[in-house]
């Protein structure tokens, strides 16, 4: 059964805690061409804001692995992305991510899926919400 409106509200278990490290922050900042920003270096760096996508993507895996939805990453287009931060992610944070399907608009073989991934520390402090709109095409139509 392909993804449909019936799946709105479905959530997946939180991802295993991921520890944000200074080395990973430095690596991600360098990949953005932003290695010179002192906020991303030193003893207590913050992560570049869009580093949140690394955690959010880990939560996507559960949805793409859900056999009831029949989704494939290779037939998915990332339409838009929004982050809302309660505070920046910092080195030493243990972060988990929980994905919820917020909206599905299925038309023919194409579904527009809105998801929200809530990032929080392992102790429950809210850090960030990463909301995405995805356009998915069913295999039959490909």
């Amino acid at each position, binding site marked *: 059964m392909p993804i449909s409106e019936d799946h709105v509200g479905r959530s997946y278990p939180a991802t295993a805690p991921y520890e944000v490290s200074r080395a990973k922050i430095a*690596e991600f900042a360098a990949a953005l061409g932003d290695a010179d920003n002192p906020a991303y270096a030193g003893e207590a760096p913050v992560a570049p*804001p869009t580093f949140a996508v690394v955690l959010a993507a880990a939560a996507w895996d559960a949805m793409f692995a859900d056999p009831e939805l029949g989704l494939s990453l290779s037939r998915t287009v*990332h*339409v838009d992305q929004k982050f809302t931060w309660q505070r*920046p992610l910092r080195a030493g944070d243990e972060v988990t991510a929980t994905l919820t399907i917020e909206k599905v608009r299925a038309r023919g073989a194409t579904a527009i899926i809105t998801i929200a991934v809530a990032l929080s520390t392992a102790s429950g402090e809210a850090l960030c919400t990463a909301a995405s709109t995805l356009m998915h095409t069913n295999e039959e139509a490909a």
Partner: protein
Amino acid sequence: MSALAAEVGQVLPSFSRTLERADLVRYAGASGDFNPIHWSDGAAAALGLPDVIAHGMLTMGTALRVVTDWCGDPARVRSYSVRFTKPVVVPADGGAVVRFGGTVTKVEDGVATVSIEATCDGVLVLGAATAEVFLG
């Protein structure tokens, strides 16, 4: 942190970044997004793309430097949203030059809204790119 001044219409410093294949590979490693359309000619061609394309999130992440270079502290960024309007095509030879800029469009309750522009060959590659920045 000390208060940051912003006024509507303020133009933030712009910059360009040349994205080369090596930058895409580096971002793939740093982000964990190994979708082959970002590094394999064959995968890109199979989807009808003229060449491999940059990760949308690489463009989105780089574009936010318009805001963080200006405000100094990335912790000031409250929200950031974009639409992935058009892919950035990255040829093996020479890469792609992406130009980034921004304008303050609203200042209210100690929060500045910045509209960010990202263009490649004069074409917008991000749509409705907007960040909210805490000024206090």
